[in-house]
């Protein structure tokens, strides 16, 4: 029956995701090898003696060919060993742990606010299509896709942290903090992130629902004399769930990227800030590690979106 076909399609999609992740790891590794000169030079600076350079190269294994270094790096990554940072010689995996959690917490909070809000506003926009609410919503969407994250972020800081002093201007968090205090600390960055993705998610939700509502089978339901509520519940929702989940996943992926800038604005100790710091220090192992993790989350969310679409398609669930 259908389940075998579905399992096969999902297995295929998972395999594709893994393949993609490997290809991305190659790309990220290759991307950091195009440097003119080498890592040893950039660590020790122009004044380094040839002997010192040679020692460092040997220590870092830079004399091996690129593909060997790649597999050594990949082997490490697969066993949870991201190597050591060049700038401070600390273990990367250790430094990442807490930061990854912080980033996911922030992104999660933003998602908890933005997803229901976006779907609600999207539904409202469809319900009052071409009306005042719809126009206001699409005007807001146009404006907010044009606003850089730091404009929203600093505006919020100026009002809520400096003028009103409701929230702190920089989101310092530490392990012993209570949950409530933590929430207060990340309120502003979470709102900023929400505003950044909200418009996009809402616009896509609106389009997805509208697409379903304009189908011929909705007209059939109307001509059966069903109430508007029943039409939406019985006929629109089962078909709209997949596209909406798809929209949500794509926007969560988008949110993960938005996190980078927002963390810098609010000096929040997450992955994004860690990445940006080490890009300026040209600390390649850290950049590779963080880049790969961001890419993995992004690919994972896109994969979930595709799998939901497979699961929700009645043609695949019930093949001929």
């Amino acid at each position, binding site marked *: 029956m259908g389940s075998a076909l579905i399992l096969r399609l999902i297995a295929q999609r998972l395999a594709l995701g893994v393949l993609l992740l490997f290809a991305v790891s190659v790309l990220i590794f290759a991307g950091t090898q195009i440097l003119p000169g080498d890592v040893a030079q950039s660590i020790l600076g122009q004044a380094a003696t040839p002997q010192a350079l040679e020692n460092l190269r040997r220590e870092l294994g830079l004399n091996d060919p690129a593909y060997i270094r790649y597999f050594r790096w990949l082997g490490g990554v697969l066993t949870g060993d991201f190597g050591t940072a060049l700038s401070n010689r600390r273990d990367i995996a250790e430094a990442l742990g807490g930061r990854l959690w912080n980033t996911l917490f922030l992104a999660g909070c933003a998602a908890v606010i933005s997803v229901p809000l976006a779907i609600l506003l999207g539904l409202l926009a469809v319900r009052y299509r071409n009306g005042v609410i719809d126009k206001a919503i699409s005007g807001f969407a146009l404006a907010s896709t044009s606003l850089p994250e730091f404009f929203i972020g600093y505006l919020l800081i100026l009002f809520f942290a400096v003028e009103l002093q409701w929230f702190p201007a920089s989101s310092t968090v530490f392990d012993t903090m209570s949950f409530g205090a933590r929430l207060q600390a990340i309120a502003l960055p979470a709102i900023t992130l929400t505003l950044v993705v909200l418009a996009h998610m809402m616009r896509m939700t609106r389009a997805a629902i509208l697409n379903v509502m304009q189908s011929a089978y909705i007209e059939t339901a*109307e*001509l059966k004399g*069903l109430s508007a509520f029943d039409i939406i519940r019985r006929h629109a929702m089962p*078909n709209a769930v997949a596209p909406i989940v798809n929209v949500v996943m794509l926007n969560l992926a988008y949110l993960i990227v938005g996190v980078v800038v927002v963390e810098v604005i609010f000096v929040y100790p997450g992955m994004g800030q860690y990445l940006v710091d080490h890009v300026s220090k040209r600390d390649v192992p850290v950049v590779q590690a963080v880049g790969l993790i961001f890419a993995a989350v992004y690919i994972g969310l896109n994969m979930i979106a595709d799998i939901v679409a497979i699961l929700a398609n009645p*043609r695949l669930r019930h093949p001929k």
Partner: protein
Amino acid sequence: MAEQPRKKVQEAARGTGTLLDIRNLRIEATVYPPGEDPKNVVIVDDVSLTVERGKVLGLIGESGAGKSTIGLSSMGYGRGGVRITGGEVVLNGRDILGDERGLRKLRGKEVCYVAQSAAAAFNPAHKLMRQVVEATLEHGVSSREEAEKRAVDLFRQLSLPDPENIGDRYPHQVSGGQLQRVMTAMALCSKPDLIVFDEPTTALDVTTQIDVLAAIKKAIRDTGVAALYITHDLAVVAQVSDDIMVLRHGKTVEWGDTRQIIEKPKQDYTKALVSVHAIDHEEHAPTPVPILTVDNVTASYGGGRVKVLRDVSVDIHPGQTLAVVGESGSGKSTLARAITGLLPPESGSITFDGRTLANRLADRPKEDLRQLQMIYQMADVAMNPRQTVGTIIGRPLEFYFGMRGAERNARVAELLDKIEMGKGFADRYPAELSGGQKQRVCIARALAAKPKLIICDEVTSALDPLVANGILKLLLELQAEEDVAYLFITHDLATVRAIADSIAVMYRGELVRYGPKGKVLTPPFDAYTDLLLSSVPEMEVGWLEKAISNRRMEAAGN
């Protein structure tokens, strides 16, 4: 203009006769032309009609005649921002307009709807049975158990296969012809007084169409439901209707009982509709040397995996027409692709004007390309929307004959004249032309190359009957003037009768019957040709019953 049938007056006196009474209906819509201010257009203007209990009224007209809009108005429904702005719709003795809550109680209970594309009208997420009984349960007509039992009965009445279990399937698991019948069952299930059939057989293949038509007719008769039957095909509507109303541009042209409309039409427009296809074309005898010979051609897609053409051999004679007939999937368009070189044949050869054609398009000399032209089904996508008519017709002149400037323009004007359009059209863009004009421009473009053979791929099937007729007449005239041969691909046998000198019947990639027109259309027939011939609706009351009882082969897809 409207002809009031006399018996309406008599039955109205009895008080039970009239089910639906539409008076002076006016329907408008707002259109938004790009870059202009929105404007109002009148879609239906002052139309009145009545339907008696248990009777079928056929609404017929070209696209844009307003027939679907009228049909939906009987349910108080306007599709896509269409507004009913005048008149009354009286159903079961009460005016239904302006009472939104009352409309909901009436839809699905008193009036049901059968759409043109059942495939789109069913919700892909639910099983058929759930959708079939939904309106019955919603309106509390009967319990679920009874409703499902009635649905199964209806499936059986409509000769659906496996009536007990077909309801457990999802829409995409059932063929188009079957789905159309399930939708009819869905409309009948809540025991409505009236069903609106909106072109229910138009999207089906011709051999499937007549089965569905017969099933619908039987179901209407057995249940005693009244119906509005909407179609653009007069021959189809003549089979199921008691009365017919002819519509054009949103106005009534003529209204009368079926026999009168078919046999003694009063208005010129109706007369033209009835006599469409009545082109007399004497067949020419084959010449000794054919212009094109297709010899044992086999072709397939996907590197030999799907054979779409098997061992096909046909001849086309200079200045004559070979019609290739068949249903979708018969391989008739593939034959054209093989001849043009778009799909190089696997085996067999094609000889054109005494020389063998290269298999691949890229290997053919320009002269071969010039002498073999093509006209497409959809004229609007066959022309570059960014080029003017002058450029479109002028390009082959430039490309093949190196004509430039005034010489080219003069020839373009001449060609425009030939297709009965003035030279003023040279500056127009395709978007500014009507459907028929577009196809004429495509014909002119083909003629510009001075070809010996033109492949016509379903060139009239996207057009309204009268326009299509004009195109066929033009093609015949041009053939006489230019001595060009046609390979005419069509699924429509009426068109074949009108234009062909010889006929090739194709079925599942093979040639099943081939020869001069007179011979092919004379019995004894093979089973498939018989099915095909007997499936073409004729403008004759009672034809359907005769055809069904005489056929020897079951149509595919049932």
